[in-house]
């Protein structure tokens, strides 16, 4: 069992390793499917994001008729990012983590892959529909009305198998990630179904429909992306540093606080608007209260990793995940700031909203998903990521890209918003003030596109088993120092 190359296994023994290998094997088909298709959608979303951003700088850019007008490219980009990349990446990571934590192999992977195909068909039809002029212009629900039942039914399959796995779990303590992933599985159908039924199938007041769409967008963030992202960080961070989560009670309290407050958020997007005042007020108050779960998570991660964050230098998983965890903190703080009328006066309706959304969707969720990909893919493909250089490229371009994007959109929003607030100056002033920041936005998306082209290439290599198989050492972001045996064992560096 041991050769000159392999080190002593850090696991509890061969049996446990075998069990894990079995579980990994069972999840391979669906996880690889979701990983690959989501990575493709990420490139599409980034490309559409870049095009839409350049159109804000140079309106006549790619002025090839109706297909690429800004009002269609922008929602196509957002929907590709959310439904094409975000949800599929989350499903892939979630399935694997749930299987591992429940210690049961995934039965019936074919159903999941079929569901995934239907999901992709739905998203493709939706994105093409938007570009062809059938967009509903409803916030985060821009897909033409025939798409949502396809997506809902596909996702219901995922929910079903998450529950089945959970019920079949080995007796023992339930870990916090399982609760988070289970919650996301329940809540997406409820959220998505409600929003679509009350807007498309049983339409009522137009203002209430707008309010429901803002509730839906916020619900997607706090009740799907955040739980899946947090569930993933709660798995990956303690796993890699090899320490238990600091306080489980704190983690549970944070979880329930998120569940209780998350559903009330969203309508503060329309504060000061033609809605009963208590509805945006609830949204603002609930968003402020999300500080509670944020504090819980932050404290737990901080205490869990105390003194052990040196691994960030080497482990791609840890580096991406910790970046994402900081992205989460930033996102929550920004969203709290934007809940007040005094701030909204200047930042409502400005680029700051873009910065906020991107900090959640990319700065937090996507970076955490990258961490999950780097951890999970070797375990389901049987080969390691090809080169550390490609991972480095991916990391730095993504990091620079998202920092540029979020920072310049927040500051750009302030510039634009103070211009709009100058009611006695021409509207032109706000456009002129924001323009430079929009150029930085294009730069940010350019970096992100480059980074993810590399990532897609790398992922595709892995999915066809063209990763590195020359050794069982993990692919690290930077080389271990030569005296590796002394402080850090490879077991700890990447795991």
């Amino acid at each position: 069992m041991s050769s000159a190359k392999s080190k002593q296994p850090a696991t509890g023994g061969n049996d446990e390793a075998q069990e894990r290998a079995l579980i990994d094997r069972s999840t391979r088909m669906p996880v690889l499917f979701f990983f690959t298709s989501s990575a493709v959608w990420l490139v599409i979303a980034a490309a559409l994001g870049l095009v839409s951003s350049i159109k804000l700088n140079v309106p006549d850019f790619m002025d090839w008729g109706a297909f690429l007008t800004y009002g269609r490219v922008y929602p196509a980009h957002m929907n590709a990012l959310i439904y094409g990349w975000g949800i599929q990446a989350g499903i892939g990571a979630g399935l694997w983590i749930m299987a591992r934590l429940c210690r049961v192999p995934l039965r019936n992977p074919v159903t999941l892959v079929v569901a995934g195909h239907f999901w992709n068909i739905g998203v493709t039809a939706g994105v093409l529909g938007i570009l062809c002029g059938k967009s509903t212009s409803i916030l985060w629900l821009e897909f033409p009305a025939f798409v949502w039942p396809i997506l809902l039914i596909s996702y219901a399959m995922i929910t079903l198998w998450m529950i089945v796995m959970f019920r079949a779990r080995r007796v023992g303590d339930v870990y916090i990630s399982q609760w988070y992933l289970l919650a996301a599985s329940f809540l997406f159908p409820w959220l998505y179904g409600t929003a679509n039924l009350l807007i498309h199938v049983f339409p009522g007041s137009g203002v209430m429909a707008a309010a429901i769409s803002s509730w839906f967008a916020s619900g997607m963030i706090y009740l799907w992306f955040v739980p899946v992202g947090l569930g993933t960080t709660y798995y990956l961070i303690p796993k890699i540093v090899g320490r238990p989560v600091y306080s489980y009670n704190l983690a549970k309290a944070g979880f329930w606080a998120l569940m209780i407050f998350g559903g009330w958020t969203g309508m503060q997007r329309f504060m000061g608007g033609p809605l009963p005042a208590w509805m945006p007020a609830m949204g603002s108050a609930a968003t402020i209260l999300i500080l509670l779960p944020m504090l819980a998570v932050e404290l737990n991660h901080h205490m869990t990793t105390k003194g052990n964050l040196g691994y960030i230098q080497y482990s791609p998983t840890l580096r991406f995940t910790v970046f994402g965890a900081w992205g989460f903190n930033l996102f929550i703080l920004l969203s709290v700031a934007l809940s007040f009328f005094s701030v909204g006066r200047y930042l409502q309706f400005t680029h700051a909203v873009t910065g906020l959304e991107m900090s959640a969707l990319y700065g937090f969720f996507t970076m955490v998903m990258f961490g999950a990909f780097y951890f999970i893919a070797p375990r389901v493909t049987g080969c390691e990521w090809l080169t550390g250089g490609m991972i480095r490229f991916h990391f730095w371009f993504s990091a620079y890209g998202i920092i540029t994007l979020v920072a310049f959109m927040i500051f750009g929003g302030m510039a634009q918003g103070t211009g709009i607030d100058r009611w006695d100056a021409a509207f032109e002033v706000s456009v002129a003030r924001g323009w430079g920041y929009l150029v930085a936005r294009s730069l940010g998306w350019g970096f992100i596109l480059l980074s993810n082209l590399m990532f897609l290439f790398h992922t595709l290599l892995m999915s066809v088993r063209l990763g590195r198989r020359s050794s069982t050492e993990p692919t690290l972001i930077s080389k271990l120092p030569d005296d590796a045996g002394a402080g850090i064992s490879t077991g700890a560096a990447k795991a």
Partner: protein
Amino acid sequence: MSSKDPNLEKIDYEETTSVVDVHGSVRREKDEPRAGMEPVSHWVVFAGALVLMLGAGYLGAHNGGFDMDNTYAVRGYQAAPRPVGEGAAGAVQQLSPEVWLAKGKKVYNNCQACHNQAGVGVPGVFPPLVGSDWVTGSTERFAMALLKGLSGPIKVNGTPYNGVMPAWESLSDKEIAQVMSYVRNTWGNSGSLVTEAMVAAAREKHGGHVGAYTEALLLEVPEDAMLPGEAVDLENAETWPNLQK
């Protein structure tokens, strides 16, 4: 597992059905994460209480009574009046002259029954406004005619007319100022714009007059008498003070 088999380190799930030979990435893993039970510091509880107070306080201040019909988050809301603007040069202030004239055109609908849509009037009865210095000259004379009406014969551009013009003092100051501005700047006429404040001053001075004016009474006012206020010139943006009061 034999240490002699060089393929062991390249194990791939495709190549073997045995899960006994397990890939290195799984072997080097640590245990699955588990829960720790550290007690939570009281500072966390304190911070949590602060957050709750912040959230609850915000909700308390802005809930609008939880009333489905109330869209105002501030109790007793009254729209705050527009503050006096700094008004950068060239920036639009309130209504722009174009809009002012367009509105004057609307008010002119009252006048076109007699003076004609093209301002040429009816020969012998209603005088033309085109090229008439009764309207392009003294704004005071013009305002007087509008406010109180005219009766008796009047000579315009050398031609006599004899009709009755009703009093238009029921129109607002703004409407009168708009229609005066319109007449002074259309059909080839050109003259300064008339502001609301100017008409208000005219009304104050002449509003007490009983009955319509006559040509003789109008001629008593000097022909260069302009209503008080800065001259407003269409060409020069810097002369556009508030057209409205």
